[in-house]
């Protein structure tokens, strides 16, 4: 099975190439530019990973990082790389990828760059679920994660049901979501005011979103969830691209619009909920990553793979900055993404507002 280009070389659909078997039974169409972007993002991720694993209080030379990860070299280097730095890095990459793809799917569904889970209340709902577990049941970390998943999915169901009116319209979903987010956020504040100081403190840390102290126990469940959800997202991506043409056009072309939408909501909420359960409601990655990916690839649609890579890069780089720039204080990564993302959100809102006024 050699990868060959099918069809006339002087393709009019320039900018894309077809990879597959000579018979054409397997023919995957990819944008050349998307491939280049994905490769560049991967390279940047490798750079960030190398810096993350090698620098810090205990310097591990780059040449020793990989041997250390496999148990060679000094015991200290091995411990620091495999127990402290690697799982935290992997958690950041996986959570970032999940947020990027989840955000991209919702932006595609709502046909609006503002339609990401952190804006339409899923994160706030996840926080409500987690807070109830932290403050009312004083649950373990695992129970907090479960609480946030229940909260996030519950919120998504409520927003979806409230937004349904002859199919779900993008703006309806966003406006309903913002309203629900505002309500839940006051519930969250109320919960914190009723809590003891210690509880309130751990709740506040959770609410900012952090990768501090994430170990293999966090990596494994996220990795398993992504192993299921990411391929599903890639598969749905093809159909979501069609849904962006509007329901009528998409259905006329043979797409099951409602089925695609529901499946995408389930997968998108799943990705967001898993990420939030693991690292708290880290803001703005879901909002920014898919849009950055889209501007890089210049292809409309959810851009699943580039969005995953952009999210992974954004979050791991933000965490690196949060760890190193304010050393020795370990700043929660949510603070770093909040600063960058807040600026982006302001820019996006002003642009949407101008466009809305024609």
């Amino acid at each position: 099975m050699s990868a060959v280009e099918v069809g006339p070389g002087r393709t009019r659909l320039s900018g894309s190439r077809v990879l597959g078997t000579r018979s054409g039974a397997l023919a995957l169409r990819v944008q050349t530019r998307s491939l280049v972007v994905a490769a560049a993002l991967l390279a940047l991720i490798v750079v960030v990973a190398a810096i993350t694993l090698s620098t810090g209080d205990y310097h591990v030379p780059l040449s020793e990082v990989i041997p250390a990860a496999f148990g060679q070299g000094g015991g200290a280097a091995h411990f620091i790389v495999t127990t402290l730095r690697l799982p935290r890095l992997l958690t950041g990459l996986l959570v970032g990828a999940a947020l990027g793809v989840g955000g991209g799917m919702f932006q595609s569904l709502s046909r609006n760059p503002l339609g990401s889970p952190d804006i339409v209340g899923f994160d706030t709902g996840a926080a409500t679920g987690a807070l109830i577990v932290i403050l009312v049941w004083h649950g373990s970390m695992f129970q907090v994660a479960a609480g946030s998943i229940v909260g996030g999915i519950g919120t998504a169901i409520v927003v979806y049901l409230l937004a349904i009116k002859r199919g779900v319209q993008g703006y309806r979903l966003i406006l309903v979501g913002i309203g629900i987010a505002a309500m839940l956020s006051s519930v969250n504040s109320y919960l914190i005011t009723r809590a003891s100081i210690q509880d309130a403190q751990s709740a506040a840390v959770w609410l900012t979103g952090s990768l501090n102290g994430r170990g293999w126990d966090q990596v494994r469940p996220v990795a398993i969830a992504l192993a299921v959800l990411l391929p599903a997202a890639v598969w749905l991506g093809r159909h979501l691209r069609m849904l962006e043409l509007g329901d009528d056009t998409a259905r006329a072309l043979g797409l099951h619009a409602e089925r695609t939408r529901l499946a995408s909501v389930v997968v998108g909420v799943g990705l967001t909920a898993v990420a939030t359960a693991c690292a708290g409601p880290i803001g703005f990655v879901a909002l920014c990553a898919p849009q950055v990916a889209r501007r890089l690839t210049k292809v409309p649609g959810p851009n699943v793979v580039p969005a995953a890579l952009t999210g992974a890069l954004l979050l791991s780089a933000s965490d690196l900055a949060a760890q190193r720039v304010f050393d020795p204080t370990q700043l929660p990564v949510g603070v770093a993404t909040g600063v960058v993302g807040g600026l982006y959100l302001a820019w996006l809102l002003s642009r949407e507002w101008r466009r809305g006024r024609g």
Partner: protein
Amino acid sequence: MTRLRAERLELAYDQRTIVRGLDVAIPDGSFTVIVGANGCGKSTLLRGLARMLAPKAGTVLLDGEQIRSLPSKEVARRLGLLPQGPIAPDGITVADLVGRGRYPHQGLLRQWSPADELAVADAMAATRVTALAEAYVDELSGGQRQRVWLAMALAQQTPILLLDEPTTYLDIAHQVEVLDLCADLHEERGHTLVLVLHDLNHACRYATHLIAMRDGRIVAEGHPCEIITDELVEEVFGLRCRIIPDPETGTPLVIPAARKEQRAERDDRADPAVTRSRPRATSSAD
């Protein structure tokens, strides 16, 4: 036998019934145009024929089979629909948009084939948008954009193509351009076309089969030369008019009666509500 037909079709939005008990057969190879006043159900009928709306009663048959029982992609290989005012995603290129018309011919593993390549190139050539292939759809003029959408529908390569008001928002030159293009597709490629049009004169000029609707029912159908009379136009649109042969094509040309006569007609109808809401101003802006 006709490939696309509806029997005792009843279509409704929520509780509001728009089309009731309608039987229609779209003649194969025809250039069918549906006309009627605003809100008469012509777009609803088109959407019903394209399975966009589930009928409340009755059926739509495609090749003798219930359209709703056929797999959606299977229908999409036989019947295409270009809805009214379709939306292009932000930042999409012409070639990408036209390529999406190939969706019903593709699968998970077979995402692009030489046949797709040919169909897209051919559709863009037929609608003369080949030179725009790399342009962004949002940057095109209204006429160009409509040709691009037509190209997408053509790339779908369906023998039957339904177009919902494809000339809306276009100036007259671009309206004629789009309709000429449709006529070419009909004559040279043998597509069965079903259009909803607002302009009765365009309908008469291009249609080989005209369907006139009023209140969700078909009032008359047939070749425009056979069915268009001043009585029919008055019944369908409530407009007094004179019919003369189009000096270009010989098809019926509808000339609305002058203002005075229309006004007399409106008063004759003795509809106090209408008369009151239309004060007898003599403003020339009327």
